[in-house]
């Protein structure tokens, strides 16, 4: 495994890979029917889309479908579904990344990139930049709390948990984590790791934290349960409810992939 944590494929690593051309030959007949794009133009558009998505993945904010159409496809906006499908294929087969569509009212509005590789124990040796590292620790703590509490945690309870750990203190940013509250309510929400929602029909307004869409795709509940069991010094299977949920989620993911 190279330093990017991706298994190098036996296929070539370059843009103009043989797989794209093979795939495009099959698709070329379809596009000839559509009558819009030549297979060369198609290939270019798909590659541009892939490059666009990869560079926007930097921030981990959701990539808007509208932006892809506006910036990359421009006049070819009509074939957007087709091009994005092609980009999904390239990302999966060559980069080992899964492009997940986030739907809203059965319309795809956003996309995000998830790592598609199945790591066993190698993941713990991956070296992330310092910022990412501290954010991952903070997310692990918050997401595990929400998970163990059944999927929801109120704002006050989250705050008290973090201050007990010594991470959270109003008006002061933490040495390792930075401005924790800003991360929880701003950055992580924008990156779709967390949802910070208002509890309906409560006055004065109260908020709660839930798992975000990205967390659902990226975070392994099993690993979180294993961490909690580690600090408790017990076996993950002793947490019956949570362990059931782990098994259920894994089953759902397996079925989805088929």
């Amino acid at each position, binding site marked *: 495994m190279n330093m990017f944590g991706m298994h190098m494929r036996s296929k070539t690593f370059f843009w103009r890979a043989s797989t794209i051309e093979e795939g495009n030959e099959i698709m070329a007949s379809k596009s000839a029917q559509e009558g819009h794009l030549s297979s060369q133009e198609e290939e270019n558009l798909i590659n541009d889309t892939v490059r666009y998505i990869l560079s926007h993945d930097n921030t981990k904010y959701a990539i808007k479908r509208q932006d892809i159409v506006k910036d990359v496809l421009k006049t070819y906006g009509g074939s957007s579904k087709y091009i994005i499908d092609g980009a999904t294929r390239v990302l999966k087969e060559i980069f080992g990344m899964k492009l997940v569509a986030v739907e809203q009212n059965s319309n795809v509005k956003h996309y995000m990139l*998830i*790592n598609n590789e199945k790591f066993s124990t190698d993941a713990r040796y991956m070296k992330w930049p310092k910022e990412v590292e*501290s954010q991952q620790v903070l997310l692990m703590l918050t997401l595990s709390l929400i998970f163990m509490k059944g999927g929801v945690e109120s704002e006050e309870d989250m705050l008290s948990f973090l201050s007990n750990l010594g991470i959270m203190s109003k008006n002061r940013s933490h040495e390792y984590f930075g401005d924790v509250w800003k991360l929880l309510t701003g950055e992580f929400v924008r990156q779709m790791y967390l949802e910070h929602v208002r509890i309906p029909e409560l006055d004065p307004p109260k908020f709660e934290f839930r798992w975000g869409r990205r967390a659902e795709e990226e975070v392994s509940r099993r690993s979180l349960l294993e961490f909690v069991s580690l600090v408790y010094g017990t076996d993950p299977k002793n947490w019956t409810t949570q362990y059931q949920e782990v098994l259920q989620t894994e089953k759902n993911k397996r079925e989805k992939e088929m």
Partner: protein
Amino acid sequence: MINISVQNPEDALIDAKVVNASSTVLKRSAQALDTNLLSFTREEYYKNTLSYLQEESSVVRQGKLNFQKLASEAAECFSRTPSASYILGAFQVGEVACAKKKERKQRAKQEIERKSQPENVTCNKEEDDIEDSVHYIMNVLTAAYRQNKNKPICFFKLVINPDSFGATVENIFHVSFLVRDGYVNLSWDENRFPVIAPVPRNAIETKYEQQKRQMILGIDMKKWEELKKAFEIREAMIKPRSIDATQESSN
């Protein structure tokens, strides 16, 4: 059915509120219900986490916990894509390319007679300044040579500006133009010090017949100080003319 009028609407409203409240309570109770062998509480969780951190780090430095210990645990929980970032940040494509294109287009449209004019105009201010300085130095040198009864002048006495190292280097640079074009003559005196003398006007025409003599010299601030002391140079022979140099000399 529709004809039956509601007798007591206030009662119905209260009933609705009761149902709403009791369903909220039921929901909360269901959430609180725990069928685990082990129950999970926030308090226990944070306490266990803290004790785990404290036993991991060999030194608890002044009560500050090293959360970095959890980094490898955390990394295992995520399927994150690594992303490439740019080393130097965003690159701005300058407008220079466009401006040049416009200029060229306009030039092509101009008549042939006008062609010579742009060549003069492209001579920019910097080059003019250098030319002026070189002329000025030539004058200074000629005057000093005459004063010295037509004997060559010590090179260092000419170029060194005791107040500014930068001006000294500039002077050497300007003198090198004179040497290159053959207007001055460099040679050694009896003490092996470099001396410089202007070449008489009529001899300049035949400069190709003269031996082209060049001297390579290196100078740094330390040498500059030593030369100042050795030759007892108190005042610059070549007065600095640009604004920057006068500011330096006034310091």
